[in-house]
């Protein structure tokens, strides 16, 4: 099993120096960002390392839940910040992500696919939440811009006596698909174009490739489930913001 020492980590700073050198040479104004980014990544990762060690050692269900909740809160905040088309979507991203993530984790625990141990739950929750975050932001943004760009089509449906659900149905489906598209593409190319992170990590850490593959398959299915549920819930909650109870299109 490969276990890098501090010296090796410090030596890898040579790669940062090369990157800064190259961008300086080409006058790409990112040297400062690169330096700051490298320091930030170092500090954040070391901090999370200690935090995880603390949580793993304590092995408390409350602490696991708290860690997941904090991850979802931060992820939902980041997702709502990324939705440019309309404001105040934090409650939507938070609800969608919490339902998508917890349902998926609960299913895995209930079927005994993973044991209820911080070492397994927390890293998988992290993968689930970051994927759900992207999915909810993309789905909401797509829905909001589609509704805005198709007001006449939607109001034509409404004026012909259709419910808002029918009038917005196609846009809802398109938006949910947009949320799911990256995981669908990932599943199409996984193992062919790139080796995914979880599997690479396990192989680097000394695991047998076939073991690593089995875990990666579970990870892919897990992400599919969380992203699907998160996208559908996000779209379902967002579309309601655009209509009144009397099937009128609101200008949000």
């Amino acid at each position, binding site marked *: 099993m490969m276990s890098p020492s501090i010296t090796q980590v410090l030596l890898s700073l040579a790669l940062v120096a090369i990157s800064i050198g190259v961008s300086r040479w080409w006058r790409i104004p990112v040297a400062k960002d690169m330096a700051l980014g490298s320091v930030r990544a170092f500090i954040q990762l070391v901090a999370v390392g200690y935090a995880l060690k603390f949580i793993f050692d304590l092995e408390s269900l409350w602490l696991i839940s708290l860690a997941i909740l904090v991850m979802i809160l931060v992820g939902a905040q980041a997702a709502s910040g990324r939705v440019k088309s309309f404001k105040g979507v934090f409650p939507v991203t938070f609800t969608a992500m919490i339902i998508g993530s917890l349902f998926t984790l609960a299913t895995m625990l209930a079927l005994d696919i993973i044991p209820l141990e911080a070492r397994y739950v927390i890293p998988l929750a992290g993968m689930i939440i970051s994927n759900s975050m992207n999915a909810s932001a993309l789905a909401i943004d797509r829905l909001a811009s589609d509704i805005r760009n198709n007001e*006449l*089509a939607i*109001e*034509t*449906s*409404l*004026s*012909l*006596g*259709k*419910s808002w659900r029918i009038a917005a149905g196609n846009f809802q489906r398109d938006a949910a698909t947009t949320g799911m598209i990256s995981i669908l593409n990932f599943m199409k190319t996984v193992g062919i174009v790139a080796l995914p992170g979880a599997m690479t990590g396990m192989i680097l850490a000394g695991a047998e490739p076939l073991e690593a593959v089995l875990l990666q398959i579970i990870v892919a299915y897990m992400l599919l489930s969380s992203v699907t549920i998160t996208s559908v819930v996000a779209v379902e909650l967002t579309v309601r913001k655009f209509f*009144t109870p*009397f*099937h*009128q*299109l609101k200008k949000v």
Partner: protein
Amino acid sequence: MPSDDAILETRRISRAVQDGSQTKTVIDHFSFSFKKGNIYTIIGPSGAGKSSLLRLLNRLDEPTEGDILFHNQNIKEHSPCRLRREIGYLFQTPYLFPKTVKDNLLYADSKLPADVIQRLTEQVQVPLSWIDRAVDTLSIGERQRVALARLLATNPEVVLLDEPTSALDPSYTESIENLVRSIVQQTSLTVIMVTHNPEQALRIGGETILLVAGRLVESGPCERVINNPQTEAGHLYKMRQLK
């Protein structure tokens, strides 16, 4: 007091909308009683609230004040979806779903029998052979007719037309006007048509409502409202039109 032959009645309806930091009144205490089987034109300068009024009658928007009665019953007591099929609305630039003519008619009513489709196409003077044509091969005037047929497919009692000829050239304008008149003659439909052109209101006939800044300033037989207005605002509007 509800009027017996009124099919649609507005009672001091207003609508205010937020325009930046200001509140703008687009419809201002508008009261009127539309009678069954009649044809009405709504005229007035641009920005007078003509389209806003039609949207309220179709309940695409909610009045901030006042009531609308359909068959003497407040429209709030109707299901909005059913009401919109009874009070149909044709948008100024009609939207057709990017499929065939027939698909668009079936969108209004998926169980539309073949003989009704035939009658509708005859009514709007669209050749039956066009039924399988993709709508993007149609001209603006032809699209207008298909949209009208689709609207009639919901079997409405009242039809709201928002400047149906604004994008058309004169020959098409005349044929749409004839079409509207013939539909009213053939059926017991009530037609409420917005136009920015008083000449067109005279050609259509029936009663005319003059709307200025969201207010009803004059109403009555079209000849009188347009040629012989009784109010100062009516005179002002006539003078502007003559210029």
